[in-house]
């Protein structure tokens, strides 16, 4: 008796499991990512009339102040927000990690809350607080103090800084954990003071975390659409212009929107390449045997550090508290009164079911797709290295660089015309969410797979289970915890998506985030707050599961 079957030919092996999956993954990423990007690039180089150069659209962009100003504006707000996020985030992370300030875990919770809450909710909440008829504006006006305006560049920078400093905070916190206590002890032993040790030894070792955090803040600020629409007024940044041009061109070819989108894509791609280069350049690959320890501080220092961190956290969490509180207050258009009511919830109860169902349905579908496809792609990248797998890796990582609004325009350009007219359907939103989150799923599965010994899978193959059976019976069960935490993170991140959704939705496919955006634009702050509270709740639920039952900490977020 023998279990040997006839050997397949080389041609036959092409049709075995993993080559087929690899091919499928290449097709899917090409259709959802490369083709849309290719199409907007093509459109951006199309001169409209005869005798026009293919660079016409770009020539116009760089000659008209209305257009090129937006690029400069984008750089101004993003770079300012990045610098400010570093200035407030690095000390905060250092104090929380190293100083014995009070209620450290509460502070980490606050960071998580601000970090995962939808950015556009934050900005509109600041309008409620600091807008022309804002609560704080009026409060201080009674005492004759006029607060700085929340509108325009300063307001956008302020909100971006508060919204995105957690990138810096979380990365620096985990960076500090990878430094061994002996390094600091050695510096102190050789005669450096605390400040000297920080700048000469700790900060250089933190550089990879700091640069990564800074570039994530930059990219997030550069590509955010909701905040500058709500706060910008006459101050226009690139994403706002893309959205405006796209809405103007609707029905026709969004040539100008594509041109702007390509410019945005160039900036984000350059930023990501820079980040990769910087983190490889400054990486010392340290592994801490004993991480930096908490230091007992004299009372004065302890109080000062605590006061700084508490003040920062209070400001950061204020918009969230404001949303939840104001959702229970009677509102008169944009003006809130101090009267408790459930009216806002009664009003949304009638209209929320469709967008809520849409949100949950799209998010869940995209999340499940991400889990399945992401795990398979991760397997190909880790276990079947080669040229094709490296290509797939590069394509997937490229989708990091494609901002939501760019992907939205690309998908519309690609799938607007029959035979594949998908704009305004649920499918196109699911596709967008899926491809946006795919690199995160792949990355998290890749890192768990790398920790998993190959032997276990080889044992399964050796015992007669084929590649597909081994993947399902051995690899997936062993990765199940990692996949599940990936699912929770993807869900929580996808549910608050706004930029791509604004481009791709069609009224009947609106999500909760689009509804909130519409109510804010229409000035119905009470209803927006109630919807915002619902969305915040939906965002937090999976994270509560993740942190409470799966032993993850806040560093899983970045």
């Amino acid at each position, binding site marked *: 008796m*023998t*279990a*040997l*079957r006839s050997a397949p030919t080389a041609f036959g092996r092409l049709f075995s499991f993993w080559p087929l999956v690899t091919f499928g993954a290449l097709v899917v990423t090409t259709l959802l990512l490369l083709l849309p990007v290719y199409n907007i690039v093509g459109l951006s180089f199309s001169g409209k009339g005869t005798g026009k150069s293919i660079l016409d659209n770009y020539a116009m962009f760089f000659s008209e102040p209305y257009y090129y100003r937006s690029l400069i504006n984008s750089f101004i707000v993003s770079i300012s927000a990045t610098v400010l996020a570093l200035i407030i985030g690095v000390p905060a992370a250092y104090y929380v990690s190293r100083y014995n300030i009070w209620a450290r875990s509460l502070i980490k919770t606050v960071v998580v809350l601000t970090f995962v809450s939808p950015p556009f909710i934050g900005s509109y909440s600041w309008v409620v607080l600091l807008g022309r008829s804002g609560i704080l504006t009026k409060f201080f006006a009674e005492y004759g103090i006029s607060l700085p305006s929340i509108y325009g560049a300063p307001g956008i920078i302020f909100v971006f800084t508060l919204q995105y400093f957690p990138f810096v905070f979380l990365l620096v916190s985990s960076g500090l954990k990878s430094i061994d206590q002996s390094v600091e002890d050695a510096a102190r032993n050789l005669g450096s003071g605390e400040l000297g040790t920080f700048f000469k030894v700790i900060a250089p070792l933190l550089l990879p975390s700091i640069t990564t955090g800074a570039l994530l803040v930059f990219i997030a600020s550069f590509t955010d659409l909701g905040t500058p629409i709500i706060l910008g007024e006459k101050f226009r940044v690139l994403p706002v212009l893309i959205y405006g041009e796209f809405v103007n061109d609707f029905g026709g070819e969004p040539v100008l929107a594509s041109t702007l989108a390509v410019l945005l894509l160039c900036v984000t791609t350059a930023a990501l390449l820079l980040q990769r280069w910087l983190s490889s350049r400054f990486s010392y690959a340290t592994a801490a045997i004993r991480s930096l320890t908490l230091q007992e501080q004299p009372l004065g220092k302890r109080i000062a550090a605590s006061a700084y961190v508490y003040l920062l956290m209070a400001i950061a969490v204020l918009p969230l508290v404001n949303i939840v509180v104001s959702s229970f207050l009677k509102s008169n258009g944009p003006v809130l009164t101090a009267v408790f009511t459930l009216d806002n919830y009664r009003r949304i109860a009638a209209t929320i079911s469709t967008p809520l169902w849409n949100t949950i349905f799209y998010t869940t579908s995209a999340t499940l797709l991400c889990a399945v496809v992401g795990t398979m792609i991760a397997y190909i990248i880790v276990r079947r290295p080669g040229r094709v797998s490296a290509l797939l890796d590069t394509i997937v990582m490229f989708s990091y660089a494609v901002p939501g609004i760019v992907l939205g325009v690309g998908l519309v350009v690609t799938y607007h015309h029959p035979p594949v007219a998908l704009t305004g359907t649920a499918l196109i939103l699911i596709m967008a969410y899926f491809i946006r989150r795919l690199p995160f799923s792949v990355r998290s599965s890749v890192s768990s797979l790398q920790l998993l010994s190959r032997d276990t899978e080889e044992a399964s*193959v050796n*015992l*007669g289970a*084929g590649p597909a059976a081994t993947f399902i019976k051995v690899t997936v069960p062993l990765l199940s915890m990692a996949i599940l935490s990936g699912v929770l993170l993807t869900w929580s991140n996808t549910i608050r998506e706004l930029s791509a959704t604004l481009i791709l939705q069609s009224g009947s496919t609106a999500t909760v985030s689009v509804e909130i955006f519409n109510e804010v634009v229409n000035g119905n702050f009470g209803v927006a707050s109630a919807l915002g509270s619902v969305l915040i709740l939906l965002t937090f639920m999976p994270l509560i599961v993740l942190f409470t039952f799966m032993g993850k900490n806040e560093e899983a977020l970045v």
Partner: protein
Amino acid sequence: MTTSVMVDSITKRFGDTTAVNNANFEIAKGEFFTLLGSSGCGKTTLLRMIAGFMKQTSGHVRFGDRIIDDVPPHQRNTGMVFQNYAIFPHLSVFDNVAYGLRARRRSADDIDREVRRMLDLVRLGHLAHRRPRELSGGQQQRVVLARAMVIQPDVLLMDEPLSNLDTEMRVHLRSEIRALQKQVGITTIYVTHDQEEALLMSDRIAVMSAGHVEQIDTPHRIYAEPQTLFVASFIGENNILPGTVAGTDGGDGFLIELPGGGRIAGAGLENRSMGSPCQVSVRPQDIGIVPAEGAPLQGTLADIQFLGSTIKLLVDIGGEKPLLVSLQGRRGMEMPVIGARYGIDIPAKAVRLFGQGGAA
């Protein structure tokens, strides 16, 4: 049915490095065959090519008279035991052992019977429903052994299966594995860097170095008649001394001059011209200590290492390295004295000579 295995001119290259260089041997049906060498010598690479996890650059693997180069690993019907156990942590002991039978779509009754029989054979029947994490390392390795054998593989492949266990468990399991293998009569290829393990367990051993098979022989011949300088120095303790051909005894024998001027007799060298250099190998336990007067080879005792049952003497004979002599410790024996001169008795039979290239 178990089968013979033939490794036919197999070479494996990774870029510029050659991991396995033209390996050639045939393993008989039911034989316990060991690939022995230090890490990086290519033994695991060779095993993984036989299992099908890697494809050789050139050459063929045959099971019986069948070339299996293009058979994917899951259809080769080999049973493999891994260094890190590779136990399925999410399955019970029973399900681990049943895994291969289920992949072969055997009936539930068959599976139940076979798994229980095999678990009894490795004396784990009472732990069938435990999870792997509740087992000791030795128990886990026995589960993996049962899992590999229950599918009645054509060949059993073992990749350093005992190297993660403590000494006591290792000593215990190696005789258990050998007994089990004899009882089942399955062709086994065993990879190890531990020469004691190899000598104790194997029918034949292939000693490998830098991708090259140095010698294939029974354990006794590997030890007593090393064919290359590498094997002579790798297996067991040995004195390797540089020498010069100083004369012949008329027949097959030579007179070799050692560093320091002493001369010994030996045999079996191809280049017999006077003054040609060679390497001399003598096992420490084959050397005797005699009174100095009249002995053709003499030395000064430099140090004594007392190890209980054996006593090791380091004797300075005027060369770079002292000569290592190993004596059996007996009751009432007279301890040699450090600093005294002794005669050194090396029987011609104990001497092996190698040319400069390393081959005999």
